[in-house]
């Protein structure tokens, strides 16, 4: 059997279309037996919040307002032509009609294939969040040095 390849993705974007790219690459790579790590930072954290809608979570008034405005996985905006938030729903319908996996399906596939989810300690701290504010599949909260160690020897992408 060939040695296991590795793909590490730094997910900084909280855009719907970029999240699709992240979870397409992650699930596709895991499906062909890659070890896959995703390091979620800043807006990317919205994709793995436990609360998928808008919620006042976090410590401090400013952080709570920020987290409410940012929302969760169900509030990710399209990076272009968002039309006040209508486009992600339209895009999802279009994807379904074309037999292409939706963001939700790609996300669930990534979990089923045991993609490793990591949260950036610094970004989590800035947004006043805790590990418990994220989905239980998050493996760990870590910093740059640990992520570099985890991604060593594989391919790394920044999205």
């Amino acid at each position: 059997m060939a040695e296991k390849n590795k793909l590490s993705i730094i997910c900084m974007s909280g855009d719907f279309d970029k999240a699709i790219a992240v979870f397409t690459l992650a699930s596709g790579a895991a499906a062909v037996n890659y070890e896959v790590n995703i390091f979620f930072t800043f807006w990317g954290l919205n994709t793995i919040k436990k609360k998928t809608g808008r919620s006042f979570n976090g410590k401090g008034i400013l952080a709570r307002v920020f987290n409410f405005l940012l929302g969760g996985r169900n509030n990710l905006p399209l990076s272009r032509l968002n039309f006040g938030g209508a486009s992600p729903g339209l895009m999802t319908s279009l994807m379904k009609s074309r037999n292409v996996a939706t963001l939700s399906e790609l996300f669930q596939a990534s979990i089923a294939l045991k993609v490793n989810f990591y949260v950036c300690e610094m970004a989590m701290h800035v947004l006043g969040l805790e590990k418990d504010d994220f989905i239980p599949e998050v493996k760990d909260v870590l910093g740059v040095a640990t992520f570099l160690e985890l991604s060593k020897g594989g391919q790394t992408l920044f999205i």
Partner: protein
Amino acid sequence: MSAYNLDITKDRCPMTFVKTKLKLEELEEGDTLEILLTTGEPLNNVPRTATEQGFTVVETTLVRENIHKVVIRK
């Protein structure tokens, strides 16, 4: 020994690989998985990646235009 079936002819990347991988994980030693897939990316890569993961591709047959049957054994 069990024989499993999977039809990924209507799926697109990456679900073609995702569904194959999840099904292959169910296989015990000696079990087979018969996959129906389309020409192109799935035909080029599903058998190749299965082989890389230590499975044996027993058969690849053209069923009808653009549709192939690939049998994989653990």
